[in-house]
């Protein structure tokens, strides 16, 4: 209920910028996007529709949303974060490692019966022994060792994974919890991979 109201307000804030553009005689250069696509397997046409965050962040980094829109996006992101139902943040780091390594999931070429991967290595350095890591995100090597496991850091990291836009309005990191990419158990396992002192991330 509350959430719907918030999205509504945000929608209103965004609508006005595009209405202003339209009033200024600028037409939408995209035209009918859906006409260029066809549904394929698990990738339905609904995926082309953008929520307010996606819409506001569909621009070069140089023209990110106004402070007002940014605040509104981060606030509604925060409101939708679901902490672990049993209060336990940490699962099994070995299961977490597989999730961090796996890049598959949600492409039309992927088997929807298989669990989704988290694909963390596409963007982050993690275990020192894995040299095939990407650099779109910062290194997470020694994450737990350096930061400890205080309630605050556990909550911060969970929130990051759930919806990174709480902290950074146009974050490039997928919303693993919010968008339903990973299950609660998978998130706990990935958390353990980051924090467990036996995990290769902390060797």
């Amino acid at each position, binding site marked *: 209920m509350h959430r719907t109201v918030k999205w509504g307000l945000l929608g209103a804030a965004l609508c006005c910028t595009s209405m202003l553009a339209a009033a200024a005689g600028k037409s939408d*250069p*995209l*035209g*009918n*996007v859906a*006409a*260029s*696509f*066809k*549904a*394929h397997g698990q*990738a*339905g*046409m609904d*995926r*082309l*529709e*953008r929520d307010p*965050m*996606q*819409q506001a*962040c*569909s*621009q*070069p*980094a140089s023209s990110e949303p106004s402070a007002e829109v940014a605040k509104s996006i981060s606030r509604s992101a925060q409101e939708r974060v679901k902490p672990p139902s049993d209060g336990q943040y940490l699962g099994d780091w070995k299961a977490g490692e597989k999730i961090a*390594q*796996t*890049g*598959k*999931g*949600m*492409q*039309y*070429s*992927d088997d929807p019966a298989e669990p989704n*991967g988290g*694909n963390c*290595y*596409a*963007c982050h350095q993690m275990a020192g022994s894995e*040299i*095939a*890591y*990407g*650099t*779109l995100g910062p290194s997470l090597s020694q994450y737990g060792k350096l930061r400890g496991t205080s309630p605050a850091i556990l909550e911060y990291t969970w929130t990051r994974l759930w919806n990174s836009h709480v902290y950074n309005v146009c974050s*490039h990191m*997928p*919303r693993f919890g919010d*968008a*339903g*990419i990973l299950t609660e158990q998978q998130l706990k396992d990935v958390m353990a991979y980051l924090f467990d002192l036996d995990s290769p991330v902390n060797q």
Partner: protein
Amino acid sequence: MKIDKSIFAALAWVSLAVLTVPDSAVAQDDGDNVFAQYREMFGDDNPAELIELQGEDLWSQVRGPKKASLEKCDLGLGPGKLDGAYAQLPRYFADTKHVMDLETRLVYCMVTLQGFSEKDLVAKPFSGRGEQPSDLEALSAFIAGRSRGAPIKVSQSHAQERAAYERGKEFFYYRAGPHDFSCATCHSQSGKRIRLQALPNLTEAAEARKAYSTWPGYRISEGTVRTMEWRMGDCVRQQRLPELQFGSDIAIGLITYLGVMANGEPMNAPGLKR
């Protein structure tokens, strides 16, 4: 010289069978390794040359229900004029009143001149894994080769050409899907990589030029030539979006946007890709 080539070709096919690695979404970490191994064996020899020859045959062969060759196909510089034509595509064509890229124009010629069914051609434009190159792949390789060294000159003089550019640019930043990816997520910063694969920053002229001028390209990991339409579609797949349709406004928009970014660069395709 001729003999050399065919021995090399045979070798290339055999060893590629050994080197070919499965494509696994974004986790393609073996790719660069394969590339290095390949380079070590073959240097800069590009097996695309063989596919160019197949494309040359297809161009002049009398085929299709209308029993005609493609030799009267107009790729923008006049019927049958191939040299440098690819370097000026996509462009507006008065006969169809649309901006067309090389691949949609080839389909148009195969339909109008040879009588092939557009539906069939568009249903499966690209070869599957381990199959012979599709007609479109072979023809694209051949025609791209006829622009080697020609400076890229993608026109922006017609209103539709400008609209295609704007559409492509706008879509480049379009964040959507369960992972919130846009092209810009992966291609708007320099010096970044996914796993071990270098990500070109396609918003920088120098990197866009290098990328655009080398497509179509021979993909070592797949053992075949892939085209620009294929490249767009495969990145959209990794973006977790539905399937980008061949020859669609967004596909041609993206190619026009990248082409204009690359203007001035000498065409150097087919390239050799990971």
